[in-house]
């Protein structure tokens, strides 16, 4: 009987972090507006000193490079849902996660959690707010102190936030271990005695200990084997239902994202390129990058017709990202510049030629060979054709860089993709949610922020 009473007071104490203006399920829990995070590029001693002998004024100036890790990102998360955030390594998804929790100070933009601007909070208020927002990291090993037993590990956040007394903290820790699928008897074991999947469960229990509403999961199952990953994903779904949790789930694995998410955001080089409900995004993707990503995943079925390796080249540096649409340097559907009169086939050839010259990935044997190789079926005429001719002249003189510069300046930089940042809302074919696509192929649609 006393236990029941204890449990009740514990519940009250646990609930005190609730806001008076707690949103209902389906209402916005967190919204991110124009979020931007730049880092100073500090690689190299005195690398910020730029020598400009031929410039005006002082020949040496201090000019720091900025790594534009996250640039003008907008999204919102509704209470009780899972927003999947997918992208390749280096696209800024982990930085975004940390910035959302204010573990990193944003360079620009606002984050509203339950309607409150996190920027406006004092550090003490922010600390208290964090009780409501927890994070789970990728490596279950390094996020657990090897010298602490798992029980105290789970109790630590409660201690930090002054919740409950010793005895009830221990009760709660044992209860949580059980909830995440571990044996409460394991309370006194050290992390090394657990397997990777079990350690991730300990991390889950620790995150849950302060009864948060919002959990950011940064690649929580990427280090786990397939069969263990499935166990942990199922546990996470169950806990979400039981505790009414909201997840921001970050992963590079499109299969996992499809399985766990209600809505999915795709990130490329610091920006969101597409955001839609899961089914809609996978079945009716509108951004060429999303399409390429989906096309590249190896499907675990030998009879599925795969079309992999759809993207050429590497991701550009976030220090100096491409203007307009950041994907344009690799986009298979880069839009033709309006100032030349090119047919579809001609533009296709010019685009391929331009990129090959830029990457310097071919050799040729005379002009005829070159023209046959790149412009066999359609050779551009008019102004566009004259630029191609000049570029070929450069190549014949072995001036690759001049040729590349000429082509990029005349074609790539003139495309609408380079001139404006795309942001459109397209019609969803599946479900009734919004479908955001950052691609100028949809320039006839409504522009969103």
């Amino acid at each position: 009987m006393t236990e029941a009473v204890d449990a009740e007071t514990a519940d009250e104490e646990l609930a005190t972090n609730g806001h008076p203006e707690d949103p209902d399920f389906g209402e916005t829990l967190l919204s991110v507006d124009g979020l931007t995070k730049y880092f100073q590029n500090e690689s190299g001693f005195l690398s910020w000193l730029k020598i400009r002998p031929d410039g005006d004024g002082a020949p040496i100036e201090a000019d720091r490079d900025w790594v534009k890790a996250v640039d003008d990102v907008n999204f919102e998360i509704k209470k009780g849902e899972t927003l999947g955030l997918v992208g390749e390594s280096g696209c800024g998804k982990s930085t975004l996660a940390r910035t959302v929790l204010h573990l990193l100070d944003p360079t620009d933009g606002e984050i509203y959690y339950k309607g409150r601007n996190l920027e406006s909070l004092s550090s003490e208020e922010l600390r208290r707010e964090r009780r409501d927002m927890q994070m789970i990291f990728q490596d279950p090993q390094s996020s657990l102190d090897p010298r602490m037993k798992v029980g105290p590990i789970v109790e630590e956040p409660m201690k930090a936030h002054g919740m409950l007394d010793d005895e009830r903290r221990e009760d709660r820790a044992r209860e949580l271990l059980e909830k995440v699928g571990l044996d409460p008897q394991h309370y006194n074991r050290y992390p090394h005695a657990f397997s990777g999947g079990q350690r991730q469960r300990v991390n889950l229990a620790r995150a849950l200990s302060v009864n948060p509403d919002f959990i950011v999961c940064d690649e929580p199952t990427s280090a786990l084997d397939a069969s263990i990953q499935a166990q942990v994903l199922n546990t996470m779904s169950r806990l979400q239902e039981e505790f009414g949790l909201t997840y921001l789930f970050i992963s590079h694995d499109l299969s996992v994202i499809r399985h766990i998410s209600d809505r999915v955001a795709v990130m490329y080089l610091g920006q969101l390129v597409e955001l839609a409900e899961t089914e809609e995004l996978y079945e009716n993707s509108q951004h060429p990058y999303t399409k390429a990503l989906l096309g590249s995943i190896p499907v675990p079925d030998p009879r599925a017709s795969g079309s992999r390796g759809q993207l050429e080249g590497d991701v550009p540096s976030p220090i100096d990202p491409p203007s307009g649409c950041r994907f344009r340097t690799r986009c298979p559907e880069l839009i033709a510049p309006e100032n030349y009169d090119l047919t579809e086939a001609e533009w296709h050839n010019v685009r391929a030629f331009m990129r090959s010259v830029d990457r310097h990935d071919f050799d040729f044997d005379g002009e005829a060979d070159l023209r046959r190789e790149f412009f066999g079926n359609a050779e551009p005429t008019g102004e566009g054709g004259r630029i191609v001719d000049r570029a070929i002249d450069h190549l014949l003189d072995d001036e690759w860089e001049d040729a590349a510069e000429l082509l990029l300046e005349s074609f790539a930089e003139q495309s609408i993709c380079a001139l404006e940042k795309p942001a459109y809302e397209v019609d969803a074919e599946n479900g009734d949610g919004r479908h955001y696509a950052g691609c100028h192929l949809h320039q006839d649609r409504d522009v969103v922020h």
Partner: protein
Amino acid sequence: MSEPLLEVEDLRTQFFTEDGVVRAVDGISFTVNEGEIVGLVGESGAGKSVAASSIMRLVEQPGEIVGGEIRFKGETIFGLEDVERDGDGPPEKVPRDDMLSNAEVRERIRGREIAIIFQDPMESLNPVFTVGGQLREFIEINRDLPENEARDLAVHMLREVGIPEAEERYDDYPHQFSGGMRQRVLIAMALACEPSLIIADEPTTALDVTVEGQILDLVDDLQGKYDTSFIWVTHDMGVVAEICDRVNVMYLGEIVEQADVDSLFHDTQHPYTKALLNSIPRPDQSVGELNPIAGVMPEAINPPSGCRFHTRCPEAREVCTRTHPGCREVGDGDGPHRAACLKHEGVFNAGYVESESIENKTTGGFDVGLTEEGEADD
């Protein structure tokens, strides 16, 4: 049918640790034919990487190949024979006369005949030497070419694997290459001596999905061009489906299923393979609840009795705890299809049908029993 390129028979590799003997690879047999990509798939701890290094005789202390035979193009890479000891006691195992010496393996086999590509390209390249220099040195040593010819070949190989501006990038250091580019360099290195067999140990695991796609494409192209055979070690069933011709599924040091890729996915004969396939989320369709395999893989230091998968197997019966199934032919269709599971009563005759189903304590994950206990407490 032509003679297989590589034959592995009953290979056993063990690690002698303070805690006991870890039977990392415990009696696996498989073959690789010419121009074939053979998959070696399993979860971490299944023994796939140890098996791969054993073929190259690269197992290090405290590990040791303790039994079995590895034949490659008619030569014996590894083979033991029994020698009677004076007096009593079991016969001693000593290397056979025809087994290649360490020097022969080093000089004739590694790099020239069998090359290996590791998962982490940064660890395989020396950070203080240029990429081109390392590639050139490798070619010089293994193909006995003079320096300038080796250099030309190195540049040619870099171009071959799709490194742009190969001539200029020859003098770059590994850190100036991206992960995908570094992996391409390793592929160039592996192919440079035109080996008959390349062992690829999780070569795309550390790469992004679009880069992985590029590398798989590249391997496909080059394989067609050079007619090289591959042993592809991976945990990713998607990659297996994409590129492998035949597949060996490993669990706890043993091969539990062996089949061509289509039958493995569409006519699965072993419960572990089936469970593994059911536990992965699909990129091409939405599935409700995932079906994880219960529990975790036991330690190889003290594997379960009988069938090693019986502690997690949804189809386990009492007989499975006692009888250890070998990997036997179970297929009815075309092509060999072997599986190590007693449920194929017609093949194993172990009394599986009459045997009672065992209550797998871990069925449904190890949380089931506990949650009930928790409810009783409330």
